[in-house]
Every structure is written in C-alpha cells, then in structure tokens.
C-alpha cells in the first residue's frame, strides 16, 4: 500500500477521533488526536493497518502545554500521532495495553517532563539517579542547570 492510500483510509476510518491528518514528507503521516481517544486510535492503527511498531514517544515542552508524539511505523509508512496536555495538569493515558513495548518510553516521559501516565504498569523512576530531588524535570524548558565550581587537583 502506498502512503496516499493509507492516509485516505485513515481519514475515512478514523474521522471521528482524529484531526489534521496530512502527508508531510515522503512516507510520513501526521495526525492529531485527543488524549482520551489515544488508545482507541493506536489500537485501530494496529489492527486495521498493521502499524504496530512504536519507534519512540517524544515529548516537547511548548510552554502552556506539553506535546506528546507517538511515532508508529510499518513497512510502508510512519505515522506520528500527537496529543496535547496542559502544563498545570499534565496527564496522558498509558498505551501499554495496546503496545506493551511502550513501557520504557512512558517511564522516560515521567522522569524527564513530569507527565503523569495514567494506569502505567510500572511507574518507577528510570533514568535519573537515586538521590535526584523530587519535582525536578530536566527537559522542561524552564529548568536550568548551574554547573557547580570544579575542584582543581593540586589547586591553582
């Protein structure tokens, strides 16, 4: 199946729960969804089109909102499904029931952006060190790091 046909079919099939589906580059489809319908969209993509390989989940800090992008692909096309979640109450549903391989990416989002992934099977912190202070999320744009002064061995 070529990307155009897949796009047309997605637009027809999922018209109720997606917006702005478009072919943005060769073999790249982008579409928007609402967070509450995310799992339904992913399940549909997986069952109907066989688009089951989750490349990664990228989070982006947009200021007011966080954007979370799910990159899925099969042999023909890559589909990026994006959802928005407000900064003051950042919640996204877990997609692990549909794609079990998403677990590490969701844990990473929790660590780096402070998103709350609802019903995640394994909510433990993953990447940051054990004594990392609570409530510090390094990939948020307003989080800045000050490098402490260095010790120069032999002292100069």
């Amino acid at each position: 199946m070529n990307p155009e046909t897949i796009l047309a079919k997605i637009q027809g099939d999922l018209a109720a729960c997606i917006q702005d589906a478009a072919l943005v580059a060769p073999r790249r489809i982008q579409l928007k969804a609402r967070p509450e319908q995310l799992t339904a969209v992913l399940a549909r993509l997986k069952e109907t089109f066989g688009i089951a390989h989750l490349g990664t989940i990228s989070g982006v800090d947009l200021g007011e909102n966080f954007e979370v992008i799910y990159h899925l692909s099969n042999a023909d096309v890559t589909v990026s499904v994006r959802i928005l979640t407000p900064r003051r109450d950042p919640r996204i549903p877990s997609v692990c029931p549909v794609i079990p391989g998403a677990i590490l990416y969701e844990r990473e989002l929790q660590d780096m952006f402070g998103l709350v992934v609802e019903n995640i099977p394994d909510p433990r912190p993953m990447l940051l060190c054990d004594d990392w202070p609570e409530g510090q999320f390094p990939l948020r744009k307003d989080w800045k790091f000050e490098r402490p002064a260095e010790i120069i061995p032999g002292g100069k």
Partner: protein
Amino acid sequence: MIERLVHWSRVKSPWVLHLNAGGGCNGCDIEILAALMPRFDLERFGVQLKGTPRHADVMICTGAITLQNRDRVLRVYEQVPEPKFGVAAGACARAGCVYRGSYHTLVGIDQLLPVNAYVPGCPFRPAALIDAVVKLLNSVK
C-alpha cells in the same frame, strides 16, 4: 627482601582493572580492549586485565562519572588494595568532554578520585594507553 620482590613484581606485571564510570561513549572501552588484542598486545608488558578490583593495582577509568554511578565508582576504588594508581583515560575522564555542563555527570574523574596519569584523546589510540602505562610504571620505579 619480600618488599623488594613485591615491588619488582608490581612494576613488571601490573594488573589492571577497567572501570567504565558510566558517562562515556564507549569508544574508549573499545580501544582499551583493542589494546589487549593481538594487534597491540598490552600483555607483552605483563599487563593483565582483571575482572575484580581486589586483584588490581591500576584502575583505568573511562568516561565521565554519572551521578547515579558516583558511589559505585568510589566503592570499587576503595576495594582496590594499596598501593593503587588511578588512570583517567580519554577526554571524558579527564575533563568531561562534550558532557561538560550536563546535569547528570561530574566533570572528570579527578573530582572524585586521586589520579596518577591522564591519557588524552577522544578516544585515545591504543598506543597512547600503552605509553601511559609504561610512563606510569617508570614513575613507580
């Protein structure tokens, strides 16, 4: 007499522990292994790579220390019996390389441990490591 014998054997056949401090790119580790392979053959100087810190005389550290790994590195260093020598191998171990300014690494091994020799390069060539080991041994004599 025994002391002289121990000293002699230490200089002639130092046992080396290779420790990855976490925040490196792995290139240096590969080059350390390459130095032990038939092409460069570090073992002809009596240098032997050991798996456990308790058998080692020299600890070769690669990579910048990550915060998560900081206490582990210290623990491994403390397990090396005296007298011990630290070698900071590669740019990350010396001064952090590209990871300088990262929130999760320390800039260089020497912020945490005493270091006896530095090996420059990102990554260093196996020959540079051999040179460092030989120089270190000469200074111990």
